[in-house]
Every structure is written in structure tokens, then in C-alpha cells.
């Protein structure tokens, strides 16, 4: 039971991360490595402010921090024409120092005595809050991103990811759209980090290692279930994918003979396999065609 509920909570919190990854990976078609830095940026900022007694402000500041990180990547990529992957790596590396600075120079910060959101809600016990809050945040931001990507700006961003040539010829500011979507994407990633810090009750600088793969795995698992049809379903499936990913992880850690530290390797394998399937399928198709051709000839 504890496992079921715990996975649900984590799935929802990391679902917000999956929303952000869906924006960069699927809508813009750019795997954004800033994620690895902006997740801990949100996490550290949130932890630092919560420790000072401002848990709500911590979330806002965490999001703003993520958006700023996204803006840096976006500007490196558009204004200075640095390769998309490389600009993400640059921001991510720089953020490592920033995050340490935010945590006061130490790699972790405990929030045991701090008033996290989960402790201060009226009418709800801490245990209830740990399910209710993640659900509220996940649903709220799910609704917000769906709405946003149906507005004029949101559609412009989708068009940029879909056909940049067309957008360049149609009066939409491509660079502006890209920067904005990196901001939105990383703000969501950072919010996920900000909530996780308060949820766990501590911040650890290393908790964002491999977080991009976690997000990608969620997006891909979601797509395996729902298919790739439109953004609305895409966002919903990203959150669903995140939930399923957490249950897989829970099962794997409980029943598998592998130690817990193998988790990242398993996630990486899931992502690699899922991304390889189309190519493998095509090769099998070609091979079948060749065999067919030979027997007839």
C-alpha cells in the first residue's frame, strides 16, 4: 500500500518534469540538457527558501530560476548560434556551481525542521498533503500547458518545432519562440525539483543526475500507451508515463535482484530501447523484403 501511494505521489511530482521534457523533446524536437541543471536549480532554490521559512515563495522562485536557466540556453542557441546540445551542456555545467552556491556551499541541505508545504496545509495531515498537493499541482500545470499550447504563442512554438522554414517565412519570431519555450520547459522542470525538495525534506545536489533520462522515459512510455496524436494527448500521456515509470521503478526495486543503484542504468536502457524500436522495425522490414525478393527471383 505504501509503495502504491508513494509511487503515485512521485509519479505526479515527476509528471511535471515530464511536461517540461515533452515541450523541449517533442514539441521543439531538441533534447534539452539544461534539464539536468535546472532541476537541481529549482530544488536548491526551493530548499534554501523553505529553510528560511517561505515554502510558497520557494516554488515561485524555483520556477523563475528554471525559466532563467532556460532563457540562457535559448539565447546561447539562437542569438549566439551555439549547437543546441552544447548550449544545454554549457548551462548545465555552469549551474552546478550556482546550485552549490545556493545551498550555501554544501552539496545538501536538510529541511527536517523547516516548514515545508506538506506540513503547513490546513485541514490536511502531512500524509494526506503528500498525495493531495502533488495531484493538485500536476493537474493544474497539465491544464495550464494544454491551454497555453492552444493560444497563438503556443501554436507558434509548435509550428517552430514542426517546420522552421515555414515559420521563418510567416512573420513569427523563431528565436523568440525558441527562447520562450526553453523558459517554459525549464520552469516546469524546476518546479518539479522545487516540489521534490520539499516532499523529500532535503535537497541533494546530485539528485538531478540522469533526470533527463527519467523525463524522456516517462514521455516515451506515455507515447507507447497513447500513441503520438496532438499536444493535448501528448501532455496527458507524459504524466501517465511518469506514473507508470514510478510503478516500474517500485516493482523493480522491490522484487528484482538488482540493487537500487542499478536504477539509472535500467532507465537508460528503457529509453534507448524505446528510441531504437522504429529503426529496428524498419531494418527487419527491409530484411524481410530482401528475403522475399530472393525467393521470387
Amino acid at each position, binding site marked *: 500500500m505504501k509503495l502504491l501511494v508513494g509511487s503515485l505521489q512521485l509519479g505526479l511530482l515527476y509528471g511535471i518534469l515530464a511536461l517540461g521534457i515533452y515541450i523541449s523533446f517533442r514539441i521543439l524536437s531538441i533534447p534539452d540538457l539544461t534539464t539536468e541543471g535546472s532541476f537541481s536549480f529549482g530544488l536548491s532554490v526551493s530548499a534554501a527558501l523553505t529553510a528560511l521559512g517561505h515554502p510558497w515563495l520557494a516554488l515561485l522562485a524555483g520556477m523563475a530560476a528554471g525559466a532563467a536557466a532556460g532563457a540562457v540556453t535559448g539565447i546561447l542557441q539562437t542569438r549566439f548560434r551555439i549547437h543546441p546540445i552544447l548550449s544545454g551542456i554549457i548551462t548545465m555545467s555552469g549551474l552546478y556551481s550556482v546550485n552549490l552556491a545556493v545551498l550555501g556551499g554544501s552539496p545538501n541541505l536538510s529541511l527536517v525542521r523547516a516548514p515545508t508545504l506538506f506540513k503547513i496545509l490546513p485541514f490536511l495531515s502531512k500524509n494526506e498533503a503528500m498525495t493531495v498537493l502533488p495531484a493538485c499541482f500536476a493537474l493544474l500545470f497539465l491544464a495550464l500547458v494544454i*491551454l497555453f499550447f*492552444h*493560444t*497563438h*504563442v503556443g*501554436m*507558434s512554438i*509548435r*509550428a517552430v518545432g*514542426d*517546420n522552421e*522554414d*515555414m*515559420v*521563418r*517565412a*510567416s*512573420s*513569427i*519570431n*523563431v528565436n523568440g519562440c525558441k527562447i520562450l519555450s526553453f523558459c517554459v520547459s525549464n520552469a516546469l522542470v524546476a518546479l518539479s525539483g522545487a516540489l521534490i525538495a520539499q516532499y523529500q525534506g532535503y535537497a541533494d545536489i546530485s539528485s538531478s543526475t540522469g533526470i533527463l533520462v527519467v523525463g524522456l522515459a516517462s514521455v516515451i512510455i506515455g507515447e507507447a500507451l497513447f500513441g503520438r496524436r496532438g499536444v493535448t494527448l501528448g501532455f496527458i500521456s507524459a504524466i501517465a508515463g511518469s506514473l507508470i515509470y514510478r510503478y516500474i521503478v517500485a516493482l523493480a526495486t522491490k522484487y528484482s535482484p538488482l540493487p537500487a543503484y542499478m536504477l539509472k542504468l535500467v532507465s537508460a536502457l528503457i529509453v534507448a530501447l524505446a528510441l531504437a524500436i522504429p529503426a529496428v522495425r524498419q531494418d527487419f522490414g527491409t530484411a524481410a523484403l530482401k528475403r522475399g525478393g530472393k525467393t521470387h527471383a
Partner: protein
Amino acid sequence: MLDIQNALKVFEKGTPSEHTALNHVSLHLDRGEFVTVIGSNGAGKSSLFNAICGVFLLNEGRILLDGKDITFEKEHRRALTIGRVFQDPMKGTAPHMTIEENLSLAYSRVMARPLSFSPSARQRALFRDRLSEFGMGLEDRMKTQVGLLSGGQRQAVTLLMCTIVPPRLLLLDEHTAALDPATAEKVMEITKKTVEKDHLTTLMITHNISASLTTGNRTLMMDSGEILFDFSGEQRRGMTVDGLMKLYSVNRHRVLDNDRMLLM
């Protein structure tokens, strides 16, 4: 209307592969003119369009649109008033977005309230109306992803995207060349209708010489980055494909030869 003054564009200047795409081209278009442009590969037709759209900046010369100097204006700013349809049907639309979303993007660009939801019910009605004029049944497929349409249907959608808010200048870059003959004719018919309806000032590149003489009301022939001939009125009405070919070889001392040009 459109005024190009002494436009010079040299690619890879100072290298052995230096190439003059536009050699001091001057061109004036009056409002409502429908001008066809012909010329062999590398004649400078597409460079002329790219210069007008701001894909690259000129080495020398100025471009004015409606009296406003747009020589150094950014590409996406110019696109507010210049519509362009490319030869490649894949280029003008976002394949994973629906017809109505594509149209809405194009429609809202002028009065963009960034956070307004689109398409609105009013927009939908307008799109349906305009699409039905094409007689291609697209008005019943507004929620279809554009990537699932045929080349001709995509070009029709692109054309509507470029003209749904009438542009000051419409540029058609061999927009029927990638289509099969029947579809090409259909798209051309739609084009003529649309241009007439809003009296759009239009430049159209074509490789079909006879069509270039019968479509619109003025014909330019380009060669080696220059405008070789500029026919309109009486002179154009009397011109034939053969006459044009002769004129070309007399002027250039070589035979007009291009496997892509249709001499029908």
C-alpha cells in the same frame, strides 16, 4: 508599390566560386500588377525573391515596399506584409498541425494577441468559407493534420495561409512545379481567382513559358542575374514562345536551353 533599386548580391565574394546572383537589378511594380518571371536555372529568379523576403541582405541597392525602406528589415518582420509560396509543398505548412491551426497561425499574425485562443469560432467559420471556394473538399477536413494531405492540397492551404490576410505583395516561387499536371492546373486556377479577388500585387516564377505569357499582365525574363526582357501591354500580347526564344538567342548569342523549361 515594390521598388527595387540597383540590387546587387554576390555570393562567396573574393573566392574562386564567386557568383553574382543579382547584377544591379532594378524593378518597379505597380499596385495590382500580376507579373510572371521566367529564366533558366541560376538566372536569379529565386535570389530576387530571397532578397525581397530578406533571406539574405543585399551587397548594394535598396528595396522599398509601399514607400517604406525594407532593405535591412528582418525576415519575419517583412513576412507580415509579404506572402510567399514555395515550390516544395512541405515548406509552407506545419505537417503535424491541423489545417485550421495552420490557417489560424497565418491569420492571427497580423492582429496577434499572443494569449488569445485560436482558432476562435469566428475564425473557423471564415476558414471554412474560404476553403470551400477552392472546391477541393478541404472545408470538411479542417481538423486533419496537414501532413496527411496531398501536395496539391497542401499548396492550396499554403496559398490560403499567405492570402487570408491580403498581403501587400504575393510571391509564388514555382508553386505548381512539384504537382502533377491536373493538380497544377487546379492550383493555378485557385491562384488566379485569389489574386483577382483581392487585386494582389504578385510576382510568380514559372518554368512554363507559354503560361508566363498568358497569366497575369506582365512578364520578366531573367538571365545571369539581370532582367533581360520586361514585356507588358501590346508587346506582350504579340509575343509567342518562339518569338521569345529567338529574342533570347539574338540577345545572348546562345540558345535558350533548359531541360526544366516547358516550351509549350
